[in-house]
Structures are given as structure tokens and as C-alpha cells.
């Protein structure tokens, strides 16, 4: 029987850069990144046509908004004429004719949004399946119970605030802050933004009416969709800052060609890059697995 010593654990945690990002992770990363960028731009174009957010099923210019974005061409500048009460009650709902020609680029905005959404949904689903069944999420993304000790999390949080960023390992040996934020994106934000997006489709919500009940209506789904986008945008900004802070060139190389470590190159270099990554992987597979059970 093998016994895991504390010294093994320390060496596993502290020897950086011997594991590379698997190729399927690198490919998914860039497809999803490009898709997110296109979705963000086209989504903003769509939002500019009607920069008001509501809660519930219905919301329009004749109804009060939950939030109104102030900085878009249509903000506050839509006029109506011929206001007529719908029922006898003059204080009740009304019908009115819009007299403003509004800014609307949704012809290309919407179609680009849904085209790029396919590049989020299909590679994203493959990534999720591969990550769940291949063990990638369990070994690298999902934080272990011992990592979630409040003192450790708090310490690493403070380190990040002081900008004491660990040097890039070039592989998926993530700290607990990374694991928590990547898990938030993969398991919560991405599924939520896809589901609220689907809820806004009249054909999808007719086929699956529980989606409207789940999110509290069409406009609620639209508001949650936007709020999730804001959270994802914040994640991407922090992610980019962290990539720069932890060694930009090395991180980009690790997520593209997939080099495990500069130290391997410095030590005379491996026979081939692929071999270096593979052998490093196989060497480290077992201690990591056992460590997870301690």
C-alpha cells in the first residue's frame, strides 16, 4: 500500500508548470472566447434598440422600467401620440402610437447573435460532456473540500487584492480563486445565460413553457440574461488582468500551442513539445488523484 506523505503533497502543490492544458481545452477556450466576444457586441446592439429592462412577462415604453440604460441612442427619447385607454378606466393600460424613428440595427444584430450562439452552445456542450466524463472538472476545476476552508479562501482572496499573483504554471494547476471563478462561469453563468436566452424565443417557450415559469416571465429572463452578461464581462476583464499579471506571453503560449513549462525548455528542452506535455502528465497523474482523497 502506498502512503502519501506530506512532503509529496507539498511537492505536488508547489512544483509549477509540469502539466499542460489538454488540447480539447485549448480549442474550446478560443472558440468560446470568440463566440463570447461576438455575442457581447451583437447583444449590445440588440439591447440598444430597447435599452430598458423589466420584471415579469411584459414591458414596453408605455410601462415603467426596472432599469433604463442611460447612454444609448434610444434612451429616454421615444415619443408617443394618440394615447387611448384600452378599457373604461383611464388610469389603466393604454394604447399609443410611436412617433419616433428609433435606432434599430437588429436585422444583423439578432442574426449575428444567434449565429454566434451556435458556437457557444455546441462547443460548450461538448466541453461540458468531455469535462464531466473525462474527469477534467473533478481533478482541476471543482474545488476540493479542504481547499474551501474559509481561512485559506480568505487568505488567497487577500493575496489577489494585494496583487500577489502566483506565477503562471502553463497548465490547469489552479488556485482556489481560479477554481471558484471558473466553476462559477462553467456551471452557473454559462448555463444560465443560455437558458434565459432560449426562454426569450417564442417557439422554445411554447415548446417548454416551464422556462417562463422558472425565470418569472419573458422580461425577467431578458433581465437575468443581461445581468449574467455583466457578471461574465467582469469575469473576462479580471481574467485578462490576471493573465497579464501572471505572465502574459507564457499564459498565451500555454493556452495556444500548449507548452507546459519554460523550465523544461531551459533545461535543454524535451525531444518534442508534445512528449514533454504527455510525459509530465503521466508522471503527475497518480499523486494528484490520491491527494484529492486525503
Amino acid at each position, binding site marked *: 500500500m502506498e502512503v502519501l506523505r506530506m512532503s509529496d503533497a507539498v511537492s505536488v502543490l508547489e512544483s509549477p508548470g509540469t502539466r499542460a492544458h489538454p488540447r480539447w481545452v485549448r480549442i474550446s477556450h478560443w472558440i468560446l472566447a470568440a463566440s463570447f466576444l461576438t455575442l457581447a457586441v451583437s447583444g449590445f446592439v*440588440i*439591447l440598444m*434598440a*430597447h435599452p*430598458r429592462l423589466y420584471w415579469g*412577462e*411584459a*414591458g*414596453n*415604453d*408605455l*410601462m415603467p422600467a426596472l432599469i433604463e440604460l442611460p447612454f444609448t441612442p434610444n434612451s429616454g427619447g421615444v415619443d*408617443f401620440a*394618440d394615447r*387611448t385607454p*384600452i*378599457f373604461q378606466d383611464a388610469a389603466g*393600460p*393604454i*394604447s*399609443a*402610437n*410611436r412617433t419616433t424613428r*428609433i435606432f*434599430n440595427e*437588429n*436585422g*444583423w444584430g*439578432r*442574426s*449575428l447573435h*444567434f*449565429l454566434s450562439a*451556435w458556437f457557444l452552445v455546441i462547443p460548450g456542450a461538448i466541453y461540458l460532456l468531455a469535462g464531466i466524463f473525462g474527469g477534467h472538472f473533478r481533478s482541476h476545476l471543482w474545488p476540493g473540500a479542504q481547499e474551501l476552508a474559509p481561512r485559506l479562501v480568505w487568505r488567497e482572496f487577500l493575496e489577489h487584492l494585494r496583487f500577489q499573483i502566483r506565477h503562471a504554471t502553463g497548465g490547469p494547476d489552479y488556485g482556489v480563486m481560479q477554481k471558484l471563478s471558473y466553476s462559477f462561469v462553467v456551471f452557473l453563468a454559462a448555463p444560465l445565460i443560455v437558458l434565459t436566452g432560449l426562454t*426569450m*424565443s*417564442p*417557439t*422554445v*417557450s*411554447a*415548446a*417548454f*413553457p416551464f422556462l*417562463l415559469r422558472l425565470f418569472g416571465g*419573458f*422580461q425577467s429572463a*431578458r433581465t437575468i440574461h443581461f445581468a449574467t452578461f455583466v457578471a461574465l464581462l467582469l469575469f473576462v476583464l479580471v481574467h485578462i488582468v490576471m493573465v497579464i499579471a501572471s505572465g502574459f506571453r507564457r499564459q498565451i503560449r500555454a493556452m495556444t500551442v500548449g507548452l507546459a513549462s519554460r523550465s523544461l525548455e531551459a533545461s535543454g528542452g524535451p525531444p518534442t513539445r508534445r512528449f514533454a506535455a504527455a510525459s509530465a502528465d503521466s508522471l503527475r497523474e497518480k499523486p494528484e488523484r490520491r491527494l484529492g482523497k486525503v
Partner: protein
Amino acid sequence: MKVSSRITRRTAIAAGLASLGGVVFARYPRELPPTYGHILRMGDAVTYAAQRALLPRQGLVREYSRAEITSFPAIGTTDPGIRRTDLAAEYRRLQDGGFAEWKLSVEGRVTTPRTFSLDELKQLPSRTQITRHTCEEGWSAIGEWTGVPLRLVLEAAGIQPSARFVKYSAYDDWVDSIDLLDALHPQTVLAYGMNGRDLPIPHGAPVRLRVETQLGAKSLKFLHRVVVLDEFDDGGPEGSIQNGWSWYMGI
């Protein structure tokens, strides 16, 4: 050779993919809207094909109570009569006569092409539904619509089995079309009433279409003509595709 009868994970996955493939192939639309080589229109076609192939068919949209009716903006054409076209002049004439002489022409792949007056439409079985109008701009409104299901009108004219699409034209020059799945949907209605009154002019008097499974832009107002088609027709310069918009707006 001994054949193993054990179901392995691999055979289970293969069987699952094969049956999914069979379902998708059988439900895949026989004709997709043209793309004219435009990448965005290709994306639209993928979305249309995927929704038709994968989703349960003709699910009913949610209906609401009268207390949930909301304010309702009228946008786009709010009075077709003020335009300087022949159709606008015709619309003014009909409007002056209280739409008593208005007629909906139903033609194309039907055994008896014919017209329906407003009274003739009102004699057919009616349907009243309180639904959500969802605009591509991002807003939504709840209203009550009364009218005759398009299916009943098409059947009254004798829709032929070769029919695939239904095209419709409006007095404000717009032309659009839907596939037969949406045309025969129980909530697709030729509406002549809104919120318990006659359909007001800003909302499409005397008759507008309600395609509840798609965005509001498909629900043309001020209708005058319905054409049943065997093949896709993009509607020319008045149709959505040549105006840079997706034809399918179920999303």
C-alpha cells in the same frame, strides 16, 4: 461467430445517436429559406432547421388572464391611409365605408380561390386568446385577440396537400410568409378584434395576422391577401430577407 447480446456503453451511445439522427432527418424542413450566400442568413437557416427538427411541434404559447392585459405600443405603420400609394388610396376608400367592402383574397394552391368579407370571417368559428406580443426590439405587451384561426380559412378555400408555405400581403406594402407548421397552428389567427373591441387602425384594422410562435414582426397588420404556396417565396423587395432580416423569427 458468437454474437454478444450485452449492451455496452458504446452500443448504447451508437443506438442513441442513430435514433436521434432518424428523428432529426424525418423532421428536418424539406425547404430552407434562401441565404443568397450571406453568412447571417445561413445562421438563420440553421436555427430554423434546428428548431423544426428538435422541438416538440405546435406547442401552445402561454395565455394570460384579462387582468394581465398591459399597455400596447403601436409601431411601424399606424395609419396606412396616409401613404401615397395605390394601396393606401384603396385603404382610405375602405376605411371611409367602415371596412364593409374590405375583402381578404385567398389564392394559390387552394381548390377554390375566393375572397372573405369581414362578415364572412366573423361567421366562421372564432377564437379569443390573451397572448404576449414580443417585439424584435426587446419589448413585450399582453393583449386579447379575437379572430378566426387561419387554418379554418385555408380549409374553407380547400388547401391542397402540396402546400408548404403561406404568404400574406398588407396595405402598408409589407409581404411575409410562414411555413405550414405555423400557418396551421391553433393559435395562428386572423384577428379582427383586440381587447374586446374592433381591431383599431394603429393595430392593423380591419384584420391582422397573429403568429404567436414567432416575434411580432411576423404578425402583419392591414391584411388584404393570402397566397398558399408549394415553394418558398422571399416576398421580393418588400419581404424580410431582401431587407436584411431573418425570415424565421421563432427565436
